[in-house]
């Protein structure tokens, strides 16, 4: 299949939808996908693990009342997809429902790529990795190991449904990651940094090897670290990937599937004040070039910018079609799926706290004793209870209003609603970072962002009691 040919012709999609509804059902959808990717690594200064992949497949779903029936097949062969549709229909006993004729696809606001990564010779990608490797190793004699990886992916999707919708998207993403291991006497530390975007190879113009400098700096800095303190303290969270805190603490609890099952601490709180008025936050799938960006979600709904918290008040949940229908609202364009093998579920795209007016240095200078969590390795939340935990990858003590010693092995732990209400300063600085979010066995690229944010009290878990 040529890289730009339609994944399936509309008449094929029309036949699939008609067959899927041949024994009744309220709604049918065909989701087609083609994914091509290339990854490459460098480790021990050796370029290795070149991997190239391509796959195509289709998922068909029929919604009948509250029951969703779903089937997926590898490949885009019409007979296979029709068989999947017939299998879904076979479970129903009603009269055929007639799909609405497919409307001409809206020309979507497609991504503009300057340089198609697939057209860049693999040798150039290897060369960039060698640059990263050299830069990491030249950061100091204590750098013991360096590794880096490059990945590119192009994901083309086409969605057709029985309400006549027809939509496509074409998403290219490029990402670079560097890991450094530093060693001093018996102490070992690691540093990790990434650069990624919903963009073409032009992302790596300029000086991509700065990613390696940053990873090395983190690892070397930590060599002098003390064990992190344990106990409750004021925490200043760094910009950029610090936004993962909001992603976990609030974003997941706003996804409508959890809300509708009463499995979110934000259920029943619409319109209520849940944070100080200085806090406004968005989920925005349209931010140009960001990691979680797309033209449409994986149900064909155009990506939106949704204000989820405005001046401290909860203003919106995040919806896919199914959950929006249940609440009698419109989808917010958050119906995402990891692949054609998965059902869409409400997922964040790019989630961020709008910059405030606080100066980040001042924010720290006001803290007598606290913890400065610059970046995280990741986090996890249980939306039903609101309990969360974050692993701090770079953290420092704040003593007498100054950032002092680096700390190793810190974890932040707390409860969403309490911690959110305790945010008492939002910085005017702002940065977006890339992440991979896991939910219900599905992984999605998401953007997280914020400036510096201060939380009045949160538990730091470390080894120093």
């Amino acid at each position, binding site marked *: 299949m040529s890289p730009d040919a339609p994944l399936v012709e509309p008449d094929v999609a029309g036949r699939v939808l008609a067959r899927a509804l041949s024994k009744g059902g309220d709604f049918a959808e065909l989701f087609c996908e083609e994914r091509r990717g*290339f990854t*490459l690594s460098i*480790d021990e200064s050796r*370029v290795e693990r*070149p*991997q*190239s*992949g*391509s*796959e195509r*497949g289709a998922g068909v779903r029929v919604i009948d009342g*509250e*029951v*969703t029936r779903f*089937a*997926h*097949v*590898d*490949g885009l*062969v019409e*007979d*296979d997809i029709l*068989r999947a549709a017939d299998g*879904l229909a076979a479970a129903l006993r009603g009269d055929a429902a007639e799909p609405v004729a497919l409307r001409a696809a809206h020309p979507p606001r497609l991504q503009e790529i300057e340089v198609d990564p697939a057209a860049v010779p*693999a*040798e150039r*990608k*290897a060369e960039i990795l060698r640059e990263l490797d050299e830069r990491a190793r030249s950061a100091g004699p204590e750098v*013991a*190991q360096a590794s880096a990886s490059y990945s590119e992916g192009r994901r083309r999707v086409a969605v057709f449904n029985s309400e006549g919708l027809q939509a496509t998207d074409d998403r290219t993403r490029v990402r670079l990651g560097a890991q450094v*291991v530093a060693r001093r006497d018996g102490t*070992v530390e*690691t540093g990790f940094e990434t650069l990624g975007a919903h963009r073409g190879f032009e992302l790596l113009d300029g000086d991509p090897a700065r990613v390696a400098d940053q990873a090395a700096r983190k690892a070397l800095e930590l060599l002098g670290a003390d064990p992190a303190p*344990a*106990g409750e303290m004021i925490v200043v969270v760094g910009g950029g990937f610090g936004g993962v805190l909001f992603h976990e603490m609030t974003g997941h609890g706003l996804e409508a599937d959890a809300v509708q*099952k009463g*499995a979110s601490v934000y259920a029943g709180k619409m319109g209520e004040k849940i944070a100080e008025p200085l806090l406004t936050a968005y989920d925005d799938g349209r931010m140009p070039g960001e990691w979680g960006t797309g033209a449409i979600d994986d149900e064909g709904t155009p990506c939106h910018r949704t204000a989820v918290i405005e001046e401290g008040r909860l203003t919106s949940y995040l919806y896919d079609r199914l959950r929006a229908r249940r609440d009698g609202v419109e989808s917010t364009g958050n119906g995402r799926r990891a692949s054609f*093998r998965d059902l869409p579920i409400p997922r964040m795209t790019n989630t961020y706290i709008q910059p405030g007016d606080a100066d980040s240095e001042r924010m720290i200078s006001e803290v007598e004793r606290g913890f400065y969590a610059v970046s995280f*390795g990741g*986090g*996890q939340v249980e939306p*039903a*209870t609101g*309990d969360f*935990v*974050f*692993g701090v990858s770079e953290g420092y003590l704040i003593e007498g209003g100054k950032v002092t010693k680096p700390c*190793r*092995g*810190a*974890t932040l*732990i*707390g*409860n969403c609603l309490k911690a959110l209400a305790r945010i008492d300063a939002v910085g005017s600085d702002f940065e977006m970072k890339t992440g991979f979010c896991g939910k219900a066995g599905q992984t999605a690229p998401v953007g997280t962002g914020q400036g510096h944010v201060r939380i009045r009290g949160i*538990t*730091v*878990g*470390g*080894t120093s*009691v």
Partner: protein
Amino acid sequence: MSEATTPADLEDAARRAVDAATAAGASDAEAWGEGSRSREVRVHAGEVESLTEASGRGVGVRAWIGSRTGYAYGTDLSEPGLAELAAAAVGAARVADEDENSAAPDRSGEAVAEIAGLRDDGVAATATAEVIDLAKRIEQVAFDSDTRITGVEEVVYVDEDSDAAIVTSRGVSGSFGASAAYSFLQAMASQGSEVQTGLGFGVGRSPRALDSEQIGAEAGEEASSMLGATKPESRSCPVVLSERVTASFAGFIGGALCADEVQRGRSPFADRLGDELASAAYVLVDDGIDPGGLASAPFDGEGTARGRTPLLGDGKLLAYLHDSYTARRGGARSTGNAARASYRSPPSVSTSNLLIEPGELSLEQLLGEAGEGVYVTEVAGLHSGVNPVTGRYSVGASGRAIRGGELAKPLREFTIAGDLLGTLAAVQAVGSESRWVPFGGSVRTAPMLVGEMTIGGS
């Protein structure tokens, strides 16, 4: 289905892929084919929420040009599809640097033996209506376990029948089939505005192996037992870890014993072979042929016979886990631990099933030995909280206080922290009640008592 999913068809597709790769210029090639049929049922509030039926198949090709290697995968098993895939693998190999230890694996070492019981016909023989009833029953049991159970987020049931085949240009070939079934749920208990959750799960080769009463009750009882939980004070104390927690820890220990990380100096176990570094109570084996373990198979992801590798015993580090690459590099023999997540990834060293040898003491006796401490039932934030290179960890936890050797009030919102080697040395006893846990890979483990751990609370 029109797709190739019988073992013979997969082996044929793999053979054609190998031929295509050598025709495209590979000096050696290996192809791995997979086919599967699966279904998933999600139940909520007594009703089916979603029902998924799926089939899948694909092939991954590893190609060598001398000592350079590349990988490609695809889902198109037609002649042109396989040719494109083979060319992509050969093209990828051209980018790699030479690596003297990289070569197509020969079939050497143990002969590959059939393992009885990897496939249970219960998956194919159980109607979807029956597994829906099983999932509904699990939810009902959770509700019935305590009046304070107010919801179940969803009960998920999944089963799968799959086949895999391998062919290499060095004469290795083979195929096998396996089945798996599992179910899990999260129950919610409420009291006033407080909500607590509890997890229940079961795994086996067929839906017949899943005990709905046990799975549902586990989730319901855990959720209700957590109501009224408070944050403990920060301190160091004896800790009993539930089998779920010991499974997660075993997963990290197993990962750090994989020879690729060890050889690259990224493991706390590097250069420690033969050293006494664990408690003698902690006996760990990687077992790739136990029919009860879902990772079991006659051969690994590159055709080497799977086997049984003692890792920790008598307190000593006994072995690392190898695939053919790390074996060649380390002057060792492959332990048959080349794993594939699917045809979409090349083989790499990984644990198969980890077995922690059960001890003598029941959970009650372990709690009695602990005296005053904490029983940790659940940990969270493992992927960011455990550093596999340094071995240090700090993760979120919840559980129960241990007072006078018995379970007391529920505890939440605290952390446990330490380092893996220190924790291994501090294990005082492993319990007698072991079960298969699907966390940290596939692990058969029991609760255990650790003499001292750091609790971070208020």
